[in-house]
C-alpha cells in the first residue's frame, strides 16, 4: 500500500513541497535551539512551560478525538462511519507523532530522553503519559494498517485485531486523562488544581478531533474525489456540538467556583486570561484578546452548527464552523490553559510569556510535519478506496 504515496497529481506534490519547506525551517530553528539551549525560547524561570508543552497538550486531545469514530463504528456497529473510521485512526497517528516531537523539542537535554525508560518512575505522571502515548500510537498503527490491508484485499479483518481495536478505546481516554493529570495533581497551581480538568480535556478533545476530520473530509471530497457521506458528516457535527457544549459548561463551572468562592488564588489565572491582571500599577493582559476571540469563535461556531442549513446544505459554512471551533479550542487549551497556570508564580509575581521567532519556527515545523504525515496517510486511504471501487 505504501506505493500509493509515490503517485499523485502535481497539486499533491506541491502541497508536500509546501509543507516540506516549513519542516525545513522548523529543523533549522531546532538546530539553533539545540546548539544554544532553550534560552532561545520565550520561556522563563517563572513560565517554565510554553508553546511546546501547550501544543503537546492540545494535540493529545486531537489524537484522542479519533475515538469518536472508532467507538460508534466498532462498539455500536454504526455503519456510516465505515469509510472514515480509518481517517480517525490515522489522524491519531499524526497527532501523537507531533506530541512526541513537541516533547523532544521541549527537553533541556533531549539526548537523555531514554532516562525515562532507564529509570522508570511510577509516581511521576510523565512516565505514565509516555506509556499511554506509545501504547496508543502502536495500537493505531497496528489497527489502521491491518484493517486497511484487509479492506484492500476485500476480506474481513482477522478476528484478533478486534481485541486491539477495543483496547484502543480506553487507551484514547487514558492518553488525555493522564495528560490532564500532569497538571491537576500539582499543589499550589490553583488554576490547574481542579478535578474537572480531565473531563474538560476530553470534552474539548472530542470536539476538536472530529472537527479536524470533517475539514479533512471536505478537502478530500474536492481534491481526491473521496466522499465520506452526508449522514456520517451529520453525525460528526452532532458529536462536535455535544462535546463543545460540555466543554463550555465545564469552563463556566470553573468560572463559577473561582468567582463565587472569591478565593484570590482561584480567580487570578482567570482574571489574567479574560481581563488582565493588575500588579504594581501594570496590567498584564497578553492573552486577553486571544481568549475573547476563543469565546466568540466558540459560540459563533455553535450557533452556525445549530442551523440545519449549515449542517446539511452549505459545505463551505460547515467547514468554516469546524475551523472556528477548532481554533477556539486551540486557543483555550493550546495557549491559555498552560500559560495562565504559571500566572502568577508561587511568589505572587507576574512574568508574561511571549514566544520567540525561533520557537514559533519549531512549532510551525512540527505542525507541518504532522500535516505531512496526515497527507501521506490519507493518500494511502484514498488510493485504497479508489482501487476497491475500480
Amino acid at each position: 500500500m505504501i506505493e500509493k504515496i509515490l503517485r499523485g497529481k502535481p497539486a499533491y506534490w506541491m502541497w508536500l513541497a509546501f509543507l516540506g519547506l516549513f519542516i525545513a525551517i522548523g529543523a533549522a530553528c531546532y538546530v539553533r535551539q539545540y546548539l544554544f539551549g532553550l534560552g532561545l525560547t520565550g520561556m522563563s524561570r517563572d513560565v517554565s512551560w510554553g508553546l511546546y508543552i501547550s501544543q503537546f497538550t492540545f494535540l493529545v486531545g486531537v489524537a484522542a478525538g479519533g475515538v469518536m469514530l472508532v467507538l460508534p463504528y466498532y462498539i455500536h456497529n454504526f455503519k456510516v462511519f465505515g469509510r472514515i473510521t480509518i481517517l480517525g485512526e490515522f489522524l491519531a497517528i499524526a497527532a501523537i507523532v507531533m506530541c512526541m516531537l513537541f516533547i523532544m523539542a521541549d527537553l533541556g537535554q533531549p539526548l537523555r530522553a531514554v532516562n525515562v525508560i532507564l529509570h522508570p518512575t511510577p509516581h511521576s505522571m510523565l512516565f505514565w503519559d509516555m506509556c499511554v502515548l506509545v501504547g496508543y500510537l502502536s495500537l493505531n498503527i497496528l489497527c489502521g494498517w491491518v484493517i486497511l490491508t484487509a479492506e484492500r484485499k476485500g476480506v474481513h479483518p482477522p478476528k484478533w485485531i478486534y481485541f486491539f481495536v477495543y483496547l484502543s478505546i480506553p487507551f484514547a481516554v487514558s492518553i488525555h486523562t493522564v495528560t490532564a493529570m500532569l497538571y491537576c495533581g500539582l499543589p499550589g497551581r490553583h488554576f490547574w488544581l481542579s478535578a474537572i480538568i480531565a473531563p474538560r480535556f476530553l470534552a474539548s478533545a472530542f470536539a476538536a478531533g472530529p472537527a479536524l476530520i470533517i475539514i479533512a473530509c471536505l478537502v478530500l471530497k474536492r481534491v481526491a474525489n473521496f466522499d465520506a457521506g452526508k449522514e456520517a458528516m451529520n453525525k460528526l457535527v452532532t458529536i462536535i456540538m455535544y462535546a463543545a457544549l460540555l466543554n463550555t459548561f465545564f469552563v463556566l463551572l470553573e468560572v463559577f467556583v473561582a468567582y463565587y468562592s472569591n478565593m484570590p488564588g482561584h480567580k487570578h489565572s482567570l482574571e489574567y486570561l479574560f481581563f488582565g491582571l493588575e500588579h504594581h500599577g501594570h496590567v498584564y493582559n497578553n492573552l486577553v484578546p486571544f481568549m475573547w476571540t476563543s469565546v466568540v469563535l466558540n459560540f459563533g461556531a455553535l450557533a452556525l452548527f445549530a442551523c440545519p442549513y449549515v449542517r446539511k446544505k452549505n459545505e463551505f459554512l460547515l467547514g468554516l464552523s469546524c475551523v472556528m471551533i477548532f481554533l477556539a479550542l486551540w486557543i483555550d487549551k493550546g495557549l491559555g490553559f498552560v500559560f495562565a497556570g504559571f500566572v502568577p508564580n508561587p511568589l505572587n509575581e507576574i512574568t508574561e510569556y511571549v514566544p520567540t521567532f525561533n520557537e514559533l519556527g519549531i512549532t510551525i515545523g512540527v505542525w507541518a510535519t504532522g500535516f505531512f504525515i496526515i497527507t501521506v496517510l490519507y493518500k494511502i486511504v484514498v488510493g485504497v478506496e479508489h482501487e476497491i471501487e475500480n
Partner: protein
Amino acid sequence: MDKQRRNFLKIASVTALAGIGAPALIRLSSTAALASEHVAAANPVAKPSKGAHGESASTGMRLGMVIDMRKFVDDPKLLNKAIDACNSVHNIPQIDNRKSEIKWIWKAPFENVFPEQSQYHTAHNVENYPFAVLCNHCDDPPCVRACPTQATFRVKGNGIIAMDFHRCIGCRFCMAACPYGARSFNWEDPRPYIKKYNPDFPSRMRGVVEKCNFCGERLALGQEPACVEACKGTGAMVFGDLNDAQSKIRQVLDKEFTIQRNASLGTKPSVFYIV
C-alpha cells in the same frame, strides 16, 4: 512592638489553621511544624505522636533550618553575606535577567514569600525588610513526585532534596510542581556567567534544573551549610535535625513561634521562619 507583632501573628496563624481544619492542625503540630507554645506544653515534643489519620511522623534524620528574621533586621548586610557565600560556593551564575536567572537562596518581600498569610497592616519590620527564600526541603516534596527520572530525590540519610545533574532530562516538571518557586533552569550554558570558579563543586551544563541542596557536599565534610556559616555567631540561621529532640534547632523551635511557607499544601516544609 515586637511582642505585639508576634501576638498578632500567633492569632493570625492559629485562625488560619483552624480554617484548614482540625486534622491538618493536629498533624502539623504533632510534627512540631508549627510549635505554638500550648501545643508544645500539652504534648511533649520528645516523642512524635501520630496524626489524626494514623500517619506517623517521619523517622530518621530530617535536616531543617530556622531563619530568624529579627537578626536579619538587626544587621541588614547579613542576608547579602549569606547569599554571596552560597553563590560563590556553588558556582551560581550571575545572570542579570529575570527570564534566565539562577537562584538558590535569594531575597524577596514578605508579601511574596508568604502570599497565603495576611498582608493587612503588617508590622513595619516585616514589610520593609526582605526575607530569605530557599528550597524548603519538604518532607513530602511534590517535585520528587513529579520527576520522571528520579533526578531529584530525597536523600534517605538526612531528608535533603537533592539533584542529580547528570540524570535530569530538563523536562521542568519539577518546576511546575514546586509550590515555592525554588527551582531554576539553565536556559543556556551557565559557565560564562560564573564570576569565580570554585573547583570543589561542579558547575552545571545547560538544560538541567538546579536548586539549593542544603550544602550536602559540605555536610559530608563535616562543615555547615555556606549560608549558615556566613551568619555564624548571630543565630540568624539555625540548621540541624528536626527529628532529634536534643538538637539546637529543636530547642529554638520549642521556644519560638515559627511559621512555614504555605504549610496547608501538605508538603511539610523543613524551613521555618521567625518573623
